[in-house]
């Protein structure tokens, strides 16, 4: 069976010849018609549409967007803020950048609709520090939109006004954690806040109720208002509605970004058909399906169990290739859809070195606020780096796993899981390679010098 066709909604115009990121082009393609529709309706209706759509957040956790909006404290009398999380930093993920670079007005329209629906008067786009070009593009686009009456006071003659500010990030992965982001936006070190009591929906930016949404999520909001929540919920699969951008990197013939209805394509179809399969003469070894913090899958392993389809419990028996790319199925097999970054490794990969690479990233990015993550991430990095550099011990695998087990679930923010899941899963799936590593290092030939 051939792989289903892409369904490009968010990426409709990405890489389209002749499509530019200015307002005129956006308007030619029907831009801001959804905002016009939105401001003609009641805000509560818009929130209902989003709830009906079943939209789940595209930033990583997959939290239902409508529920998130429903948690916002609207009785406090304080202003409500929208913070757009454009701090796209998860290794393997490169979707928001394309939206910002090539179709910024789509994002701005999504922001304005969200602000109108939630009575937000000020929105902040917190854009990753390493995206200076993206920040410039957004500034320009916001200026255009303001001149066009889509942003600023008295939008489209409705009397409703909302400003959008672009804030460049502080150059750290943790700035993408929503409460760390809020701290950073307030001008402080991005130390994630403890929850309770600092739930953004109640005590967020400047201790006011705050909605933090991912770039892609807000673009989906635009589509939902355009076609209606009911119609949107029919895209994708139940509880995994809409489309999703999958960013494939690593050892495949055609890496890149692909937009599919959620759950309508399997991992095997994506890698073998859409991405052209492994490189010549190679076989797939492992895949991380949702950004580097998601748990790794090993080709050849089987997943068995029962899952609910409609009202029925149905047996499933999947290889890695058979897993549908949706939030629930990936969670069922012990990993996650995360931010949509699919990282593929073939049989040329030294799995210990791969983990050492990931561990180095997380040790460098740990904010250092709470003990388990701060000390554990660096310890794991030191162990795996030592293994790669020739002083591996047979007990190191077990030690790595034990260190990771002391982190997950005990930290202030989800970084604890993000930095320990790779180690836990690499050890669970490739424990044999870790055990054999000291011996294999002794007999291994020096790695070939790559030709320029």
């Amino acid at each position, binding site marked *: 069976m051939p792989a289903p066709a892409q369904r490009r909604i968010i990426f409709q115009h990405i890489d389209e010849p002749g499509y530019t990121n200015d307002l005129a082009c956006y308007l030619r393609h029907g831009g801001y018609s959804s905002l016009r529709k939105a401001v003609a309706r009641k805000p509560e209706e818009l929130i209902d549409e989003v709830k009906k759509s079943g939209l789940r957040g595209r930033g990583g956790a997959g939290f239902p967007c409508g529920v998130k909006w429903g948690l916002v404290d609207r009785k406090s009398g304080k202003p409500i803020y929208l913070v757009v999380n454009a701090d796209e930093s998860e290794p393997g993920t490169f979707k928001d950048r394309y939206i910002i670079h090539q179709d910024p007005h789509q994002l701005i329209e999504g922001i304005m609709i969200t602000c109108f629906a939630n009575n937000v008067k000020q929105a902040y786009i917190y854009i990753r520090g390493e995206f200076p070009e993206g920040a410039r593009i957004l500034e320009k686009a916001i200026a255009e939109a303001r001149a066009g009456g889509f942003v600023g006071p008295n939008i489209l003659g409705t009397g409703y006004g909302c400003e959008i500010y672009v804030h460049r990030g502080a150059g750290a992965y943790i700035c993408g954690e929503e409460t760390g982001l809020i701290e950073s936006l307030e001008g402080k070190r991005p130390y994630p806040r*403890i929850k309770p009591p600092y739930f953004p929906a109640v005590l967020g930016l400047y201790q006011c109720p705050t909605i933090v949404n991912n770039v892609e999520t807000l673009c989906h909001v635009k589509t939902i208002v355009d076609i209606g929540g009911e119609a949107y919920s029919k895209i994708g699969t139940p509880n995994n509605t809409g489309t999703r951008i999958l960013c494939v990197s690593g050892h495949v013939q055609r890496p890149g970004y692909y937009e599919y209805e959620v759950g309508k394509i399997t991992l095997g179809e994506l890698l073998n058909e859409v991405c052209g399969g492994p490189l010549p003469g190679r076989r797939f070894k492992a895949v991380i399906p949702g950004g580097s913090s998601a748990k790794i899958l090993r080709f050849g392993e089987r997943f068995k169990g029962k899952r609910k389809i409609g009202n029925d419990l149905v047996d499933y028996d999947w290889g890695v290739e058979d897993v549908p790319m949706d939030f629930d199925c990936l969670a069922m097999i012990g990993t996650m859809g995360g931010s949509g970054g699919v990282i593929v490794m073939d049989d040329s990969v030294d799995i210990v070195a791969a983990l050492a690479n990931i561990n180095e990233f997380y040790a460098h990015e740990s904010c250092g606020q*709470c*003990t388990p993550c701060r000390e554990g991430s660096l310890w794991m990095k030191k162990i795996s780096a030592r293994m790669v550099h020739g002083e591996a011990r047979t007990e190191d695998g077990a030690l790595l796993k034990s260190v990771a087990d002391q982190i997950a679930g005990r930290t202030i923010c989800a970084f604890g899981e993000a930095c320990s899941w790779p180690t836990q899963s690499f050890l669970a799936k490739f424990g044999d390679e870790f055990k054999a590593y000291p011996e294999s290092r002794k007999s291994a030939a020096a790695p070939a010098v790559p030709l320029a």
Partner: protein
Amino acid sequence: MTSPAKTELVTVNIDGKEIAVPKGTNVIEAARLVGVDVPHYCYHPKLSVVGNCRMCLVEMGMPAVDPATKAPVIDPATGRQKINWIPRPQIGCATNASPGLHIRTQTPQIKDCREGVMEFLLINHPLDCPICDQAGECKLQEQSTGYGRGYSRFVEQKNVKPKRTQLGPRVTLDDERCILCSRCIRFSKEIAKDDVLGFIDRGSYSTLTCYPGRKLENNYSLNTVDICPVGALTSTDFRFKMRVWFLKQTNSLDTESSVGANTVVWSREGVIYRITPRRNDEVNDTWMADSGRLLYKAVRAESRLVAKDSLAALLARAETILRLSPGLAAVVGSGQSSVEEQFMTRQLARALKAPAYLVSRTDSGDGILVSADRNPNVRGALVTGLIDALPQSYLDELGTAIDRGEVRTVVSVGEDLMAAGLSAAQLAKVSVIYLGTQVCASSVAGAVVIPTLTVFEKSGTMVNQQFRLQRFAKAVAGPVGAFDDLDVLARLITAAGGSAEPSDLAGVWGRLAADVPALRGLSYAAVPETGVVLDSSPWAALPFVEGESLHHRPARAVANA
């Protein structure tokens, strides 16, 4: 004084023990009440909660209720309401008591959590306890023993950080020992109102430092040393001087102002090594000013007065002088003397039929723990009846009396008359009997100089700005040639022809309880460690100089509010 608002009590269950605590009490404090230790580093009862050390992880559960009917769900096995336990451990410091809250601290999961955090905290810690000043009072040592595994699995290189950073004139930082709990940062920001500390770099390489161009030099900087749970922040004064387990602790008071911060004096074999604050939630919480910590230097100062003669010989000379010009004496008391000494000073003035004066010491207050009245015990002088109005800045009235020849003899109980405003010429016209501890113009010019004891060498009480009577106790013995103030005053009273007064603390308290209305029925031993607030209504109209400070709003501010 305002009485604390009545708070709602809620019943929580900690390790099977039920206890009612005020709503909002956190789990660490609630557990303390039932004798359960929840180990922690970053949490401090007087600072904001950040929850970063993760040492206080506990299991938390709430009674199960049916979501539809809200009826309790009964566990058939026990016949009691089922508890829904949260699978992930929660931090005790940020978990507040709510009705029915259940906490478990002794489960395998929590044991594992604590062992994990302890191991993490120690892997990059230098483990240099043998040369560390904190050893003996180090939370890392204590909790490593109590909750750690006792061995290390760490074979990598430890992180290297700065070893001896001078954060300011009084605080030295060893960054390698720092466990990044941020107590010092929060203290500087929240209590000292001097936001100078912060972390740079990130992850395990995070390093405590001052903001560029700034120093930790505010008058509260040493509190960061007190609250540092490890040996990272050390007092430059105390560093490498003494192992803490050799030191004796004596409860005392900070006598630099009328705040009366509660302190502990740490001494060994008659030598004082440091002063630290003692918790009193009504006065100074857990803080004190740096300036108050240096007062012990007066004990062994170069300028310390000691007598070569016996007390009997000194008193004989004093008696001769007092007999020489009867009716022409004046007594200068001190707001730095204890309540007991002020009472005896009053008795001396009465025996001499002489007027009593008090020297005022005022400066600006800092709004925290140093008040505008730099005398610690002016209110004691009011309570004991030594004076009946607030002292004037200078002894102008006494100077005039001297110039007129109405005063020929001045007995000064601890006050330097020159510093208090008398001129050298005026001083030359009178015979001075000086009781005191330090060399000064009065001691040089004094006809009789009787060396007495510092506050660290005797026991007594003082009345602070809240009219709170507080005790201080003798930490070390006085030097040879310095005499107990009460004994000296009792003998002077006799020499002046007064009726015999007791010369020891208990005896004087017998007189105080009988003779001083505000102290009726009290005794030295009966004063609680946190002090007792006296009835201040007789002095309510006096224009006290203190402004607002921690736990004190002056009566006029309350009235204006």
